[in-house]
């Protein structure tokens, strides 16, 4: 499972990592702005979830999401927005873009995990099942 964190601030990225905590089977990838993220996604990075900040140099979060939604192959990506502010118009716009959640900074580990857990595909399920089959019962 791959999670792409997009934020231009290194502290914010690390804080988010920390609030997600170590989850088995999750891999966290980082990008510094929307353009870099888009480039990497177009180059074949297969992310399952994208967490994106709104204010970034080069390409902001809103534009990135718009471009993802327009792309035939990337438009299905699940997107969570993280921002330190909230504003009604932006949220209405984001809802139109069908984002999956909104994380307000500073990150609260409990809220973050509660939001992300249901979004990530239950990959570990299959693995657990196989493990159960193998173990003597």
């Amino acid at each position: 499972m791959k999670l792409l964190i997009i934020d231009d601030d290194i502290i914010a990225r690390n804080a988010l990592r920390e609030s997600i905590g170590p989850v088995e089977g999750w891999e966290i990838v980082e990008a510094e702005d929307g353009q870099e993220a888009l480039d990497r996604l177009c180059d074949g990075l297969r992310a399952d979830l994208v967490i994106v900040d709104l204010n970034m140099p080069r390409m902001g979060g809103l534009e990135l999401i718009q471009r993802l939604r327009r792309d035939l192959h990337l438009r299905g990506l699940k997107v969570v927005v993280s921002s330190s502010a909230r504003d009604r118009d932006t949220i209405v716009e984001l809802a139109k873009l069908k984002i999956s959640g909104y994380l307000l900074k500073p990150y609260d580990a409990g809220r973050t995990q509660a939001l992300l857990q249901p979004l990530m595909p239950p990959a570990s399920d299959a693995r657990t099942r196989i493990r159960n089959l193998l173990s003597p019962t």
Partner: protein
Amino acid sequence: MPIELESRLDLLILAQGAVIGLWTTASFGLARHGASKSALWFGWAGAAWLLVGFSQILLLNHILPMLLEPLLMLSLAISFNLLLEGSRRALREDRGWMIPVTVHALPPLFYLFWMVYHGAPSLAGLWILGGGFVGAVATVALWCRRSQVRGYEARLAALGLGGYMLTRSIGALDGQWQAQATLAGAGLLLPLAIRSWSKYQRVHAAAFPSAPRRPWQWGATSPFVLVATVVVLGWLAAEWRAARSEHRRRDEIALRAQLAAAAVPNSLLQQLEGTFVDAEKPAYHQLKKLMSDLRAANPDLRFVLLSKWHEGEVRFLVDSEPAGSPDYSPPGDVYSEAPLDYAQAMREARSFVLGPITDRWGTWIIASAPIGHGVNPAHMEFNVAAHDWAGQVRLARLPSLLVTVCVLGMLMTTQQARDRVRLALLHLRTAKDSAETANRAKSEFLAVMSHEIRTPLGAVIGLLELLRHDPPLEERKRYATLARGSAESLLSILDDILDSSKVESGKLSLEEIPFVVRPELGRVLGAMGIRAREKHLYLHARWATDLPRALRGDPTRLKQVLTNLLNNAIKFTSRGGITVTIGGAPRDDGHWELDIQVSDTGVGIPAEVLPKIFGRFEQADASTTRQFGGTGLGLSIVHGLLQQMGGRISCTSTPGQGSTFHVHLPLPAAGPEEAPDPTEEESPEFVRSLTPLRILCAEDDEVHREYLGATLRLLGHQVAFAHDGPHALERLAAERFDVVLMDQRMPGMDGLQTVRTLRGGGISGADTQLYVIGLTANVTAQDRRDCLAAGMNDFLPKPARPHELQVALERFYRHFGRHSPGAGNEPTAEELWEMSAPPIHEAALTAPSPELAGLFVRETGHRLQLLQEAHARADLPAVAEVAHRIKGTCKCVGEVELGRLASELESLAHAGTDGPLPSHLARLQDEFVRSGQRLAALASPTRNAPS
């Protein structure tokens, strides 16, 4: 005889120069025709030698020695290096031996050593060291010349050149052999001159296939005959002038001797006895003084003396030498070396001029006149050194010699100039011919083309006319099908013309994308297989087993190449069939040399037409067009496409049995992950039952609108229309659509701009993420990029066939349907608003980990520094920006106070009030120190607590 040769050194140099001149001219000629890269250097070496020879002739006559001597040495040294360069290039050209360019340092080093060793520069050193070394290299180079014809000529020329260098070295070492060496040199260089000239003539004849066949009109030997004639004539003229001048000088010196004889007092002469006792007599001393005075007054005389015929031998009476001189002869001394004619003339007491005569003192021209009569007859004798005498004679030869040199030079340069003019004329004629041919071909092409276009167009018009008369239903359908077929062929003709002009103007842009070889080319084979079966032909494909799965390149253009070749093959084959072989071989640089071979059993191509088939507007002949149709552009497009892709095509054919086209195209190999297998969405079969869509069709052309509307409705969709960009945006704002078909070119606001406006969110009520398919007439890679960059999701070429439209809508379904975000359980705006509410208790945040705290302290410290710097620069926007960044992260580690201070600083900087800034900065700094301590304290217990 040797003395004769030596006195004619200037003429010998002239002869040698003539040979070198021939070689030089031939070399320059070869260079001009581009026959060999070394020829130019040999030509310049020859020219340097000519300069050497010319300086030598002038120096022989003591003209400008201060200038010419260094010039001679210099040009000789340069000539060696030029010859060396020529040999170096010849060896590289013929044998591939790479001699480093540093070899040019060797000859100068040799001279330097010689100079240091001998203490002075010398011609001998130049010749022996430089000439020896370079001569050896040049001999090897000429010996190794790869000559297809007359190899012995090259060998002989090589030996001649080597021999020449050797003899000239010997001549330079010992001045006594110089004349012989020069003569031998001229002979030795002759094979080289002959060989170069004959090679030049061959090249020249090849360059000018039309008459005149030779650089000089008559005979292969003409230059040699002409040059030899000029040299001989010049020689004769020089000899004649020299003989005349010598004759005059002999007369003059004889006269001078007679005058001097008349001036000698007879009384003094009578007192001499002709023995050694004379030395005591005053008369002897008086006469001796007279002789000395005469000698002093005539500087061209070496000796002035009185002699006498006495008892069958010649005795000296008085000479002009002082007593101490080594050349002094005492009175009565016998002149034992006197030759016969000299003695004879003395006995007969007559005046004479003889010489050159060699005696114990040297070689002389002797003028003698009798003095006194009767009792004691004597002779007055003038001796001129033969060397000076020869010098004077040579000087008399010089004008004729120079004239000869001028004539030779003019001959050579005229020849060069004529050659150059002829070459230019040839180029002009070729250019004119090809321009005329192209023009003719273009007119023919236009004629063919208008016919080609008229035929289907006439059919379409005629069939439409028939349809207007409302025929029965069956007929109607048939007419429509026929008209459609004609229109399709019209479109393909126009595509061909467009492609051809793009290829010609180089405006074709090629893609380089990974593609899977077999399915892509297989699709062409499948489609063409149907056409072949219609004509009852077979179409076999052989695939090499080692063909890579994927390559990088332009699959569309590659398919076009194969389609065109197969089209041709099917068109010109009536029985049998076509075999396609697709294979190739890997190259070292990671490229795959793709190899496609298309063989048919068709009519074949006559050999004389074969070289022309890839040209534009060329068909085997006009009747081909009549019989088989077509524009004749297919192969020229194929050729142009391949050329642009870095490949090539060739063709072999036997008329009546068939032709084989061979395509070579190096393409970089693509990794397996790069090129995905073509998915079924691109395959021809598609699902028919689509959910009806609401489609907005923005198109300015009414006919097209009508057509698109009918087609889309036929496919089961609802269609609305907009006639331009603003109208489309208006409708999008008012209604809900699933897909927009957008023409790229519309008056006013074009498609791209309309999409940009839509995506930009400037139209309230319109869905900014609507699926937009562009319609464009030009499907270049650039157009495609433009469409996608403007925000279109897909695009179609115009006119879009029903099938293509359906496939495009299918794409919309597959991707948009499957990948649409979520399954409708995305939070609404209200839910998002709730979700983003700040927590009620800020303190509920968990403490940061030591790593995060450390990172925070490090980063924030760095940012504070940036803040100070920005403040020092009074750069308020930068202060605001950095403060904003600090503020944003403070909350992440729970440093609320620090965040508040940073926020205040940001608003101060924004407001532009820098008065309270310094104090604020200081507070921020203090708070940061406290934060650091707090975070450190926080970190240690949390780290220890869990254990």
